[in-house]
């Protein structure tokens, strides 16, 4: 194992650590290429792939919202409008890397390869996590804000100790940056020089609270220097820029360059969840403004202009998205009954005697109910 103290970097260079005052971008809102000194335009295949995942992701997201209306999901926090950030960040990860998502990031999880139904088991209410985190290296979606950040740092630090080439990317919201665990995780990662990417999706709100009431900093990316971590401010609706920034951070971390803090400026188009009423705290005009800066049309425009896609390919893609949504709808409409025995199986590696007693009691109760039901027939 390599030593931890070796990792402590010499006092960092101020310039390198501060973000640009305007967000980094590679594509203008109307899809025109923007010259950037610090980011390289991803290859065509990457851009085509990003667009594809964004289209599929948005369709998945709208389908999930629809499923709440049919009562198939208890609740769903939509990432509509954040497709560039969700997809751009995940696409930049390598297979051996880890993703630490929040409740908001179902789209990212599915893009990472998790089965959409498994991704929704949490929100359907069948179990707390519906997928095996090790299968695609995706941690359970985290609900207590910012608490997944130290997990990412610990996992990444362990990878370094074990000599594995693994980077951990943790997703955080603008509101989550106010929690103590964000502070703690940034600090531990910096001192340990851990291969971690802190990816903050600043979507303007923490439920009803606007960023202006969350921080008085020039930007959330300006928090980096206070830990000796480079902070990048990126146009979060520009998938090319998000991909390039995250990719650069992943490569730097993998090369022993330590953690990076990336703030992606984007916007939450839907309410906080389907249960929320956004009209109480934000004007519709603001939403319209952001609809005009739509991330999907932005990259689509670029691909069309560059001749990297044509109308046929587009409709094929839309059809594919439709088919996936159809399949998701169908599978989510199958009634499921989680096994009550699961309540006791996983509290400890081995159920305690007391838990086995409780399990027997519950089984007996359920039998009794079944018998009563039987008698009624």
């Amino acid at each position: 194992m390599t030593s931890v103290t070796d990792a402590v970097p010499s006092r960092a260079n101020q310039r390198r650590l501060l973000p640009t005052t305007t967000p980094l971008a590679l594509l203008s809102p109307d899809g025109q290429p923007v010259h950037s000194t610090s980011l390289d335009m991803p290859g065509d295949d990457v851009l085509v792939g990003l667009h594809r995942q964004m289209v599929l992701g948005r369709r998945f997201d709208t389908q999930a919202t629809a499923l709440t209306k049919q009562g198939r999901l208890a609740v769903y926090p939509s990432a509509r409008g954040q497709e560039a950030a969700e997809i751009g960040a995940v696409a930049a990860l390598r297979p051996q890397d880890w993703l630490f998502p929040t409740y908001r990031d179902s789209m990212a999880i599915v893009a990472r390869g998790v089965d959409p139904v498994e991704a929704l088991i949490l929100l359907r209410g069948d179990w707390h996590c519906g997928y095996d985190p090790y299968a695609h290296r995706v941690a359970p979606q985290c609900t207590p804000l910012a608490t997944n950040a130290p997990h990412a740092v610990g996992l990444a630090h362990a990878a370094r100790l074990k000599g594995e080439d693994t980077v951990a990317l943790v997703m955080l919201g603008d509101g989550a940056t106010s929690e103590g665990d964000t502070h703690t995780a940034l600090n531990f990662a910096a001192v340990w020089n851990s291969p971690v990417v802190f990816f903050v999706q600043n979507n303007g709100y923490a439920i009803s609270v606007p960023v202006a009431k969350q921080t008085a900093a020039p930007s959330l990316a300006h928090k980096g220097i206070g830990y000796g971590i480079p902070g990048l401010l990126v146009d979060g609706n520009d998938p090319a820029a998000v991909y390039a920034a995250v990719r650069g951070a992943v490569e730097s971390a993998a090369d022993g360059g330590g953690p990076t803090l990336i703030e992606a400026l984007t916007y939450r188009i839907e309410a906080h969840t389907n249960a929320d009423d956004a009209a109480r705290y934000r004007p519709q005009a603001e939403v319209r403004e952001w609809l005009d800066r739509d991330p999907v049309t932005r990259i689509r425009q670029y691909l069309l202009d560059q001749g990297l896609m044509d109308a046929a390919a587009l409709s094929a893609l839309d059809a594919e998205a439709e088919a996936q949504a159809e399949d998701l709808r169908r599978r989510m409409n199958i009634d499921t009954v989680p096994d009550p025995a699961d309540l006791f199986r996983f509290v400890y590696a081995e159920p305690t005697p007391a838990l086995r007693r409780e399990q027997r009691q519950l089984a007996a109760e359920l039998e009794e109910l079944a018998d009563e039901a039987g008698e009624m027939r």
Partner: protein
Amino acid sequence: MTALAERDTRTPTGAPTVTMAAALNRALADALRDDETVLVFGEDVAALGGVFRVTDGLAAAFGEARVFDTPLAESGIVGTAIGMAMNGLRPVVEMQFDAFAYPAFEQITSHLAKLHNRTRGCISLPIVIRIPYGGGIGGVEHHCDSSEAYYTHTAGLRVVTPATPGDAYALLRQAIDCPDPVIFLEPKRRYWSKETTVLDHTASVIDQAIVRRPGTDVTLIAYGGTLRTALDAADEAQENGHSVEVIDLRSLSPFDDDTVTASVRRTGRAIVIHEASRFCGYGAEVAARLSEQCFHYLEAPILRVTALDIPYPPPHLEQHHLPSVDRILDAINRLQWCETATTKAAG
């Protein structure tokens, strides 16, 4: 429903029908109106009116200086509330959900509970921490914890929980007026339960349990979300020939020994009911102290009907976790009735 609307329906004589959420909203509005030093703050309490709308309309009515949203950090909410109380204000803060109060655990345990004692009474912290708690609403993980035992074990805190809209109003008003820090636990699944009552807080309730239903054979001890379940069970048990007394604790700390002990000594049987897990749950204290104080009066061991000793389950399994009328009735049946019969016959 807005705080103002609520206030309009208020008449000296007529008794309005209110939900617990509306009663809490009214209590906050009236406290803000009656006491200039009262503040209400937390996450999403201003423009949104709280995720359960308990603070609905308050920011509009009393201004952003007295009702405001904070940055997203519970330990900051409680920690700054402590500083404000040191400077003469009476903060009423909201933790959005039970499990999201845990980041404030150090501020609550090491300061809120202890500063008055630490300074020989120089510093008073008349702070109320409102915490929507418990399950039964199909909430996902971290939104359904019954965390009362963490607070009741901490000396220096008062812990109260209403079970009815009327008590919600009275308890919250009295908690705000109380010089001690109060952990105010609001049973989520009762937010929308209605009661027709005149909202009034003159009669002391903050440290007194109340007999909700008189009975002679067995005492059910409940609070918050489980009172309704206990009352329903009592009605059914009546049909099986058991006269059941139901006590609503209201104050979990301090504990009202007089009311509860008197009842159990009369009935000779008792069952404690709560939504929290059983092991080291609040019911353990109730059972332990009653077993001691009523030892010679008990016809049967004091039973506990609680949630299972597991993390709170996902929505589709929570019905197996929570205390139910059936489980209470089963417990009543296990109270060794025949044995007493024989005992009584023998005696």
